[in-house]
């Protein structure tokens, strides 16, 4: 019962925090402390839930989807939509990822001077929406949370961004809206076919094959928009470069994973026949992400553009895992979602820290920062190493699993793209080292006095991410086993 309430609280608490923060004075330090405390409570409860789910999976393994602590209430009776939430292995891990990124995101805006109240308010609503997405198992509820997030993103980027923020915010939100409309259309179609929104029930019903044939690509691409799969990736560089640090961390770390999560959890799970028909063709798009992405990153000078294209290529690997349709590749994709969440969070956090000091994101105008701000520099390098797949950090585990898994798919196109993806790890190394060397090494360009020392909260952010990367990189086995329990039912649906 306690866990059940805790789960409901996950998305209610951020709203309550916003409500109670209204009377707090704008510039009071208590404001951010209050928000941080609330995010901390959510983080601890998500970790607690993860441990509970883990124990449950160990004690009673099952090939069915195991939904724990479910709450089912009547909600919109007219369309028989229910308030139906619960948690399983995959969603519990995504929750922890989201909670860590939200917590550190609040820390990253610790020194925001103007409009902190509104920023943190919307940030909390953003947090509530992603927690909601990961725990809702009713399609209407899922969609409501999914939409709430895009709206908050617009307000945060347009209000607090930098550079061409209006353009970036519009591009991001409108593109996401296209994706959402595609998702909504298919959800309505599913309801019309079956008369239920319940994901668990739906997974046991086989949707008609002709319906799957038309609906699957729409739904999959609709979700893929937010994960920036080619050709819907164009919002990502513009959006990331305009967004403030915390929002970039959130967007790349959590929001882009929501799309992949939806693809796996809803599109492939509910429409296995459609997946079998369409995913082999979608590999062409994935090839763009995985193979061309790093080359574009090589040619950019703006740190956020580089990281945006780096994210595009890493998310391409998630889709490669999904499209290969073997249990191992699915597991790799899920691991990559978590791993990439942490490493990109660290990437954008350190970029924000560097930008706040140098006031430029152009790597050619920086140099020797390692001398002045070694802590941040090391953080960036570790994120880079995780990104290029250095063993010992999480990126390697995820990538190796995806590669081994997708190689098991004997279809020629999948093999070719897997082989090319493996060979493209060199390209990743090129842009990451180029970036680190230009920016951190060499003689110091900006005088040392202009670069303030690393602040305690910045150290905390870096250390917490590095710990996550190392834990996943050195002890991947429990996480892999945990994810398998969520992925196996999806795979069983595919081969049924």
């Amino acid at each position, binding site marked *: 019962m306690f866990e059940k309430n805790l789960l409901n609280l996950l998305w209610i608490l951020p709203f309550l925090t916003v409500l109670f923060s209204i009377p707090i004075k704008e510039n009071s330090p208590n404001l951010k402390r209050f928000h941080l405390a609330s995010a901390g409570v959510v983080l601890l409860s998500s970790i607690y839930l993860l441990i509970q789910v883990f124990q449950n999976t160990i004690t009673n393994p099952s090939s069915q989807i195991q939904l724990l602590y479910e709450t089912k209430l009547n909600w919109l009776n007219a369309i028989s939509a229910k308030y139906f939430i619960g948690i399983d292995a995959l969603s519990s891990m995504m929750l922890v990822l989201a909670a860590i990124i939200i917590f550190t995101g609040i820390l990253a805006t610790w020194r925001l001077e103007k409009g902190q109240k509104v920023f943190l308010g919307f940030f909390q609503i953003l947090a509530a929406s992603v927690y909601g997405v990961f725990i809702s198992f009713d399609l209407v509820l899922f969609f409501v949370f999914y939409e709430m997030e895009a709206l908050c993103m617009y307000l945060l980027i347009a209000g607090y961004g930098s550079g061409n923020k209006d353009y970036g915010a519009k591009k991001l939100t409108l593109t996401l809206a296209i994706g959402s409309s595609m998702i909504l259309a298919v959800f309505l179609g599913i309801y019309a076919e079956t008369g239920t929104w319940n994901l668990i029930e739906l997974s046991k019903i086989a949707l008609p094959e002709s319906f799957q044939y038309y609906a699957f690509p729409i739904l999959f691409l609709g979700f893929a928009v937010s994960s920036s799969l080619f*050709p819907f990736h*164009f919002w990502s560089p513009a959006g990331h470069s305009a967004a403030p640090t915390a929002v970039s961390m959130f967007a790349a770390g959590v929001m882009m994973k929501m799309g992949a999560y939806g693809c796996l959890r809803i599109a492939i799970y509910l429409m296995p026949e459609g997946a079998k028909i369409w995913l082999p063709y979608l590999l062409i798009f994935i090839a763009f992400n995985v193979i*061309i992405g790093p*080359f*574009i990153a*090589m*040619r*950019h000078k703006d740190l956020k553009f580089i990281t945006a294209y780096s994210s595009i290529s890493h998310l391409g690997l998630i889709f490669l895992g999904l499209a290969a349709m073997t*249990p*191992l590749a699915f597991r790799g994709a899920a691991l990559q979602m978590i791993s990439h969440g942490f490493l990109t969070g660290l990437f954008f956090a350190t970029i924000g820290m560097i930008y706040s000091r140098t006031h430029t994101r152009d790597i050619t105008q920086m140099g*020797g920062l*390692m*001398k002045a701000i070694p802590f941040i520099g090391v953080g960036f390098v570790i994120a880079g*190493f995780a990104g*290029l*797949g*250095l*063993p*010992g950090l999480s990126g*390697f*585990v995820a990538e*190796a*699993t995806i*590669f*081994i*898994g997708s*190689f*098991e798919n*004997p279809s*020629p*196109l999948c*093999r*070719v793209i897997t*082989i090319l993806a*493996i*060979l*493209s*790890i*060199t390209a990743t*190394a*090129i842009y990451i*080292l*180029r970036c680190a*060397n230009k920016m*951190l*090494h*060499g*003689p*110091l360009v900006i005088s040392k006095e202009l670069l303030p020392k690393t602040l305690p909260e910045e150290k905390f952010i870096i250390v917490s991410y590095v710990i996550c990367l190392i834990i996943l990189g050195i002890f*991947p*086995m429990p996480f*892999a086993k945990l994810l398998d329990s969520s992925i196996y039912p999806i795979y069983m649906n595919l081969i049924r």
Partner: protein
Amino acid sequence: MNNLISHSYLILLLPLLSFIINGLFLCFRHRKMAAILSTSLSFLGAVFATIISVNFFISGAKPILAFNYEFLPFTGTLVATIGCLLDSLSAMMILTVSLISFAVHIYSIGYMESDQASGRFFALLSLFVFSMLGLVIAPNIFQTFIFWELVGVSSYLLIGFWYDRPSAVSASKQAFILTRFADSFFLLGIILLSYITKSFVFSDINALRLENFAGQMISLGIIEIPTSDALIFSTLLIFIGGWGKSAMFPLHIWLPNAMEGPTPVSSIIHSATMVVAGVYLVARLFPLFAISGNVLEIVMIVGAFTMVFAAVIACTQKDIKRILAYSTLSQLGYMMLALGSARVADSSIHILGYSAATFHIFTHAFFKCMLFLIAGALIHQVHSNDLNAMGGLRKKMPWTYAASLIACLAIAGIPPFSGFYSKDEILISAYQAGHPIIFACALFTSFLTAFYMFRLFFLAFHGKMRSIPKHPVHESLLMTLPILLLTIPTLFSGFLFKGIFHNFSPEVPLSLAKNLPSATFIPPLAITFSVLGILLSFLFYASKKSNPAKALDSDNRNAFYKIIYHKFYFDEIYYAFVRQFILGGLASFARFFEEKIFGTLVTFATTLIQKMGVLVRKAHAGSLPFYIAIMIIGLLFWYFASNLPLQGA
């Protein structure tokens, strides 16, 4: 004894501990503490390694898997584990790495004394030792790859140790990217191999037989090939990993440039241990290579070419560390050649090639490490890498002089020094296995080796001093002691270990070659060639008539000399290739596609939507005549459309 073996995880734990403590706590403020901690832990490691190798070399223990921690299960039997395989090959490598690491640690205390960042240096050095030991004890190829990457990254961090020097930074980047490029093939090879064999474990992989896969096919995407060919192909891919790490031609250019790192780093990483990882990998998977026929031939040709190529370049260089770097390349070529030449024409295996290669890894590690330490001592005195700034250091540094004579004789292959024994076996094996051209190349290279090593020796120590050092030249104890300690293995490892290495062979039974020709004429012939090289070098650089300054002049030379001096312009070719083809070609095209072609399409789509909005807006302009006109047209259309005689017909 067995008790100790069961605690063999300690061998990994000691340097890891040193890395963590130094990296987290001692790195910035307590430089001295960091040095003492990592040196004492490396001493413990060296003692432990000696005990292990005594167990294997003298007591002849059976190979054991000391521990095996399940890292990540994939599917079925495909499980990635982190373990510790102890057999004579890994014991030999553990011994080499630990002893050299200990010597280099002591040396570094002296060498890095005045460097403010020496705390970081010791932390990274421990990271390297940890990764290298993890590589050599790996019982499966997945672990090999994990630590393979870790040695790569520690090498990257140490080459770029002085990260405010642009040359060091670009050298470190080049080294990492080139080896990473090779590693991507290695990873592909591992994945292909594990897909075929369903196992990462060396003992399973080495037990494979091509006949088991008769009639099976495997798709590589575009083409479908027999599984046995795919197995051979994966062996080749795995060898490409070793190709890059051991800096074989044409992926060699990173190694000489890596000399930008501190000299102790060059000594341990870029000569004695890390760069032999490629050779070690081939040796570890030797039975797989043995059944993969032509791959061994590729190994031999690549090795032989690199051997001659690097030795020729070494004859013209002026930078003392680069000479040693090219000499390392050449010696690595010897080892590869030995492994590759083990295959006799009738597909049986002459096991001497395998044992000679491992023997040469062992002896080469000590004398090459020593030569680098000597080079570091010279650089420390004259503050320059250039041979032009040296000369006449014989009297100032008598101990170093004596030690370097021993090391040079060892690498030149003069008995009774260690290099003679291992090189001799390589020559014999190449001859007996029936590769006369390769044998001739190796013989010629041993002449070149003697020539360029003594060129360095005479130019550095003999003649007059060509520069005036800022500080009085002296030998510091901390830097001379490890050099002198290393003379012991350089002197004795040859004839003491000859018998041990002679019995070296993979665990898996191979079809061994029989009726080999006698090769008793080779040792005297090899010595003659080496002596000739030394004599020629003496004539050019140390006799009364010679003029060292003129000999070192690289400007007033013929074109042939200049091409060699500029390393056949490979640096420039690579630079142009990366600039023009990768960055200017592929990456620019990718960005052009993304921004110009695809971006235009996106903009076009958005303007289309906007235009449609404008069109619809115009329809709602509120003009009554327009509405009426549209209404009438619509009615007329509807009327005619419904009266068309289509259905009735």
